[in-house]
């Protein structure tokens, strides 16, 4: 018999849930407004590795979403938090547009390697540089390990393959900080002072937080009514282990 707790926070996926490229998902703006009229905290989570928070924020503003920049939590944010926590001086293999999220980080005499989606850095010379650092003991931090991504003209290699190559060459395992790592969600919740049992995630990814929520919270969520998406609820950690697709609480 699981204890019922109050819903305190909602994590919302960005790409695919609130917007698709530069178009808002129909009904999403209204849904968010309804959510705002309730006492839950909101955090927008995404795995982007190319865009800094400010760019994402500006795009969402243009689409008339009621959102604050510090409500955005990206895999870059997660990487930055880890670098700050451990006081690493990273070799940053990240896209130029993502560098803004690492402003203030000391990158001289690197003792760590951070890898994001950065085709301009995935060349022999730069990868050798990263390889030598890791061989000498520098930790390897992966923003995420996507195999590839879709571009207009076809599929393109993501950071995953190059991180795997570095792992193989150095016999070191990368620390992955982005979705769907558990640490990503826990870190997002930590930033709003919330426990997993007090939160839900709304998105198109299979999710991973054990939660139980009150009846009134269920009704609240029912009102939100985001078209086409389900809300994920896992009653316990076993769902995490079982690789089942998310069980849908309700679907509009």
């Amino acid at each position, binding site marked *: 018999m699981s204890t019922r707790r109050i819903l305190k926070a909602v994590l919302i996926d960005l790409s695919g849930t609130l917007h698709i490229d530069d178009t808002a998902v129909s009904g999403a703006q209204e849904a968010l407004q309804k959510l705002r009229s309730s006492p839950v905290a909101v955090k927008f989570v995404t795995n982007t590795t190319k865009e800094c928070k400010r760019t994402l924020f500006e795009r969402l503003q243009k689409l008339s979403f009621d959102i604050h920049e510090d409500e955005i939590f990206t895999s870059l944010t997660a990487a930055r938090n880890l670098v700050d926590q451990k006081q690493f001086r990273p070799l940053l293999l990240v896209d130029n547009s993502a560098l803004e999220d690492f402003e203030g980080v000391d990158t001289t005499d690197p003792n760590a390697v951070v890898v994001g989606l950065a085709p301009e850095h995935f060349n022999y010379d730069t990868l050798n540089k990263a390889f030598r650092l890791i061989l000498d003991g520098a930790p390897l931090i992966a923003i995420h390990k996507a195999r*590839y991504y879709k571009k207009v003209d076809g599929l393109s290699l993501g950071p995953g*393959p190059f991180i795997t190559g570095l792992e*193989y060459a150095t016999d070191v395992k990368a620390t992955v900080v982005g979705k769907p790592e558990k640490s990503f969600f826990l870190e997002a919740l930590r930033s709003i002072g919330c426990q997993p049992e007090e939160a839900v995630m709304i998105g198109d990814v299979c999710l991973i937080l054990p939660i139980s929520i009150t009846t009134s919270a269920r009704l609240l969520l029912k009102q939100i009514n985001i078209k086409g998406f389900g809300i994920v609820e896992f009653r316990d950690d076993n769902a995490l282990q079982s690789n089942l697709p998310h069980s849908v609480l309700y679907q509009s």
Partner: protein
Amino acid sequence: ACSVLVMAEWCEPVGRVKGVLLDICGVLYESGDGGGVPIVGSVEAVKRLKEANLKVRFCTNETQATREKFVKKLQNLGFDITVDEVFSPAPAVCQVLKERGLRPHLLVHDGLQPEFNKIDQSNPNCVVVGDAAEYFTYKNMNEAFQILMGLEKPILISLGRGRYYKETDGMKLDVGAYMKALEYACDIEAEVVGKPAAMFFLSALSDMGLEPDQVVMIGDDIVYDVGGAQQCGMKAVQVRTGKYRPCDEQHPTVKADGYVNNLAQAVTILLEHLH
């Protein structure tokens, strides 16, 4: 003197060893700008082996140049070596491609291209990856990836699977890292031609007309030279030159039959125990 006796177990029983398989990079010489540098004593060591009437073959995963160019470079450094004595992945993979009717998209160093002049490369139905070095650009990797993803049956053939090697200006990623990258991207498994594939070692043995227990392998890669040779039934010795790192001597799965400072020392020990 005591340690030399212990190290010589790989020469026992006396008279057993009739041939030697030598790795090239890290054993004979160190590659790098300007052609590379011979490792101290190695030129002499190869001569001594041949003068002792031992059969000598060279087993290399070198794929940045054709065998001809590569051997010429080594001859210029003073080595007694001919093309016929060298076993490298490119000729071996051409054989495989012909036998299986495969038309490759090549992700290889420019210098290796001529090895494939007689191979049909139109409408590729597989990807061959070698040590492309500076030709491992994102664009070239992506092209190989897209071709594999477009094949109903994606076939990736890797010329070796080494993790890294040492050049005069430092350690560098070897073909294995890029092979792994493509394996992960396409969710496939590569086939390996070259060390440590058993076929590769055995073709050299067959050429020498010797059984595995009559041959000693000498290399700098504990897993792919030493381990690979041991899996074929040969004794194998690791040199402390090239890509060798002290932690190799505590490798969790491979224990070399001997650890020597360099090729020259290996040859001295071997020749002392021949008769």
